[in-house]
């Protein structure tokens, strides 16, 4: 019972964190990052103003755009919700799993990360959206969902021990998955690098079109595409090894990874050839965060304990 409760709490925190990554991406893509010029309040208020009259005199009203303020504040409010869900997770972990070192430690780690992530959010605002800090803010969120995904699968295994007991262990596939995860992280860093540099180029050269900005990037942008196709073949290989696995969940996760990598390539090429439409960018980023978490879940499903 308590194991199940902890698992549900972990799943809640994970789902909320994934939503948070989506909303955070929405803030970046819609250009709402400076919607609230101060932090943690918005125009000096805990609830963003609904009209210009509500702005305190020390803040310049020309900054005020109600839509952008609420988009930015939505990200912060959801962030608070994630924080609360992780605090609940930690209370349960301390209460029930004091002796279960890996669960307790990873829960505490998620708490540290989520606090750091909030503070980094403050830095994003005070740096006026420095592209490096914005990207760091996103990368830390990926680490958060990685840790939370780990907690989810480990706590799930606690009350489904017999289901996982019959799984045949395979060191090749386990090692491949670690390698795959590292490659995904490298791929994300490359993608983030492209985004960061496009934004830096756009700041200094506001007149360049999206296509010209992309052309102004050095050739490592091709590395991102190249590695993307490499990952596609890698995920086919992993599915090949999983084909006879008795664990249905493992096979399903394998299919998911393959489909997701293919979708990512499709979305990525769509962005290059259609002038980076915002919604594509959003789902491209979000999809990568799903891959990071799902690989961790799959790895822990079939690893040798």
């Amino acid at each position, binding site marked *: 019972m308590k194991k199940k409760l902890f698992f549900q709490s972990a799943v809640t925190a994970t789902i909320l964190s994934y939503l948070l990554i*989506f909303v955070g991406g929405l803030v970046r893509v819609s250009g709402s990052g400076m919607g609230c010029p101060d932090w943690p309040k918005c125009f000096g208020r805990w609830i963003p103003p609904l009209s210009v009259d509500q702005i305190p005199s020390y803040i310049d009203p020309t900054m005020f*755009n109600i*839509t*952008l303020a609420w988009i930015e504040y939505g990200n912060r409010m959801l962030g608070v919700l994630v924080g609360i869900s992780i605090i609940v997770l930690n209370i349960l972990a301390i209460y029930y799993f004091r002796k279960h070192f890996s669960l307790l430690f990873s829960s505490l780690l998620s708490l540290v990360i989520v606090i750091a992530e909030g503070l980094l959010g403050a830095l994003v605002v005070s740096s006026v959206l420095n592209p490096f800090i914005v990207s760091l803010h996103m990368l830390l969120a990926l680490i958060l969902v990685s840790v939370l995904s780990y907690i989810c699968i480990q706590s799930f295994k606690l009350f489904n021990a017999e289901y996982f007991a019959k799984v045949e262990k395979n060191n090749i596939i386990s090692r491949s998955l670690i390698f795959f995860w590292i490659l995904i992280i490298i791929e994300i860093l490359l993608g983030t690098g492209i985004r960061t540099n496009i934004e830096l180029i756009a*700041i200094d050269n506001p007149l360049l079109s999206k296509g010209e900005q992309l052309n102004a990037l050095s050739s490592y942008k091709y590395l991102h595409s190249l590695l993307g196709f490499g990952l596609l073949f890698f995920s086919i290989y992993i599915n090949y090894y999983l084909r006879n696995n008795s664990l249905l969940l493992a096979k399903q996760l394998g299919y998911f990874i393959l489909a997701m990598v293919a979708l990512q390539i499709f979305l990525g090429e769509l962005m290059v050839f259609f002038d980076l439409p915002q*919604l594509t960018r959003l789902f491209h980023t979000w999809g990568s965060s799903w891959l990071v978490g799902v690989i961790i879940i799959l790895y822990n499903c079939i690893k040798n304990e």
Partner: protein
Amino acid sequence: MNELNKKLFIAFLLIFSLGMTALFVLREATESKIQSLNVISNVPNFELTNFNGEIFSDNNLNEKITIISFIFTRCEGACPIMSKNFSILQTRFKNSDLVQFVSITVDPEYDSDSILKSFSNQYSNNDNWYFLRGDILDIITLSENGFFLSASLLPGGHSTRFVLVDQKKQIRKFYEGTVDANVMELQNDIVTLINQS
């Protein structure tokens, strides 16, 4: 429908609605940025001179996107920051002949043509930044009535705002000239105006 298909269907539905919501939010954000650039009023007629003694009037704003500031050269607080920001914007828009910059001195008695010229050499790196002077009473009227910017206790009490004026001599928006976030917003708005023309 079996259990898995049902779950997949729900997942698909959730992601689809998430996408639709995002699309709506993105459209609203774009819309709000365009709306924040709504016309505020028209620039009134004025006639000042640049440091070469040539007349610069409101007619010089036609067909140009103009960013206007009020400064004076002896000012040590805001003006160097404001002028530095003008200089940065000037560099970033050097490839557009649509954009021009105007700085009007609020201390015309001290800021002679030669002083304005050496100030220009210090900050400007192109010939599309005009430093203007004229009768102090005209300048006060222009600041207060033309651009809605306070001009009391001059020269120290001038406004630190930038004014964005479009190709039809219409005031579109104000920006705090010393705040980086505001200057970045001005940059984005200039791009919007260029793209609209």
